């Protein structure tokens, strides 16, 4: 077990992520049947390349504002690019008419409220967020 942990830690971001180590948490509506999510699927969700859950429910991603440390960590770990690079990606999408970015919220509670509102919603919050009512996903 100790050897496995050493291998995971030296190979970059380790999946699955524990609540303490990631700095961010992925939450979904309690009606969502998923309990874990693939990193590449999660990346596709937040870049809006993937728009539907396997149940065909529309996916509604939501995140904190770009200055939030958890957002910045999530961007590097999961989207594999800086928040600024992701912003450039969204500028391309917005002004070519392809899509608009996920809504941003200033507080964890606003993200939680959004996730509770929509069955297909998924959010990224900081690891100290109050998760009352939402479901936590593990990144595999």
């Amino acid at each position: 077990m100790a050897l496995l942990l050493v291998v995971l830690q030296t190979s970059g971001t380790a999946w699955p992520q524990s609540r303490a180590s990631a700095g961010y948490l992925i939450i979904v509506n309690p009606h969502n049947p998923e309990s874990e999510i693939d990193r590449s699927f999660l990346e596709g969700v937040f870049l809006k390349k993937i728009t539907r859950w396997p149940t065909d429910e529309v996916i509604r991603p939501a995140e904190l504002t770009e200055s939030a440390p958890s957002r910045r960590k999530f961007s590097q770990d999961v989207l594999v690019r800086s928040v600024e690079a992701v912003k450039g990606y969204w500028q391309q999408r917005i002004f070519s008419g392809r899509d608009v970015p996920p809504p941003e919220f200033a507080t964890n509670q606003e993200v939680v409220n959004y996730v509770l509102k929509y069955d297909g919603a998924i959010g990224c919050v900081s690891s100290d967020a109050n998760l009352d009512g939402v479901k936590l996903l593990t990144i595999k």
Partner: protein
Amino acid sequence: MRFARWQMATLVVAMLAPSSALALQLGDPDSLLSIDVHAFASQGFILTTSNNYLANDTTHGSFQFSELGLNFTKDLTDRLRLGLQLFAEDIGPTGSYNATLDWFYVDYRWKDWLGLRVGRVKIPFGLYNEVNDIDSARLPVLLPQSIYPLENTHYLLAQTGGELYGYLRLGAAGALDYHAYAGTIFIDTSTLLSSTSAFDLGSFNVPYLAGGRLMWETPVEGLRVGGSGQALRLDVTLVEGGTSTAIQVPVVLWVASAEYSAHDVLLAAEYSRWYVTDNSSNQALSPDRPQVTSERAYGMAAYRENKWLQTGAYFSMLFPDVTERAGPAGRQNDLAATVRFDINPFWLVKVEGHYMFGTAGLVSSLNDNLPLSSLQERWGVLLLKTTAYF
């Protein structure tokens, strides 16, 4: 230099705005009346060491380099979206702030792997054609002009017709991102012929335009490769002294693309060839020309140092006729370097320098109608540009 009032308002809001919201949402998001609004306003300055480039009198500095955009999108259902963008520009002799519908569409996305879009839609050609007129979406002020010439924004930026598109996950093999489109182009003919031309333009039509882009997101995170192709025909009628000449110009373009974008690094390279033929109904007035093949390529690298600073460079090559590469007019090599400062989330400033070798990318009508071969072969360009956006 003129500024529309709403261009100034956009700039002021962007400079002072404290929040990092990426859009203006009108109305409650759950209401049918709510709309997402985005806008940008750009103002640039061009100075060349010799040769006028893109605008008049750039050897003395020119502010004829402005772009404005305002778009609205609305999700009607979880599969159906409407959108439109108003756009105005003043770049050299074109635009003059005449507002146009840059794009508008109805988009139905049935599945991730299949969607349909109809209307006037930006053309997916290469990595960056869709953002050739969007300063905030890229590092360079000028995209490599060999593949993304600014004058093409009047002809090959958007098409009116339909497009099928999709995104297909391949598991461990990555994913495919694909587009296929067909339609036509409506062109503002007022700038096609110079005032000194011996001909009058009788008609200008694009009876067809079709193409596609296929990109493979490889298993290597951040690396995507692919290609784009396009075929169209221009039908032109020229009139001189009561005599009409019909000219058909079939054009085929393709580009191979590769991009690596991960963390703070961007590497991109593209290679392209364009094939243009002239078929005329009046050989005496306008003889047929054999197919002309141009060759175009660039390599680009960029790095984001921190939240507010990004730098990059590219080398671009243009050979308008692969059979006549010699001489100044037979090529244009372009070595460029850019620094981008993101003052805040809504306002950026760019400084860019170019060292040019060759005159193939110049326009005679901006240079006293002199032949390109007689213009200064080695010359430089300085560009400054600021953009406010949300």
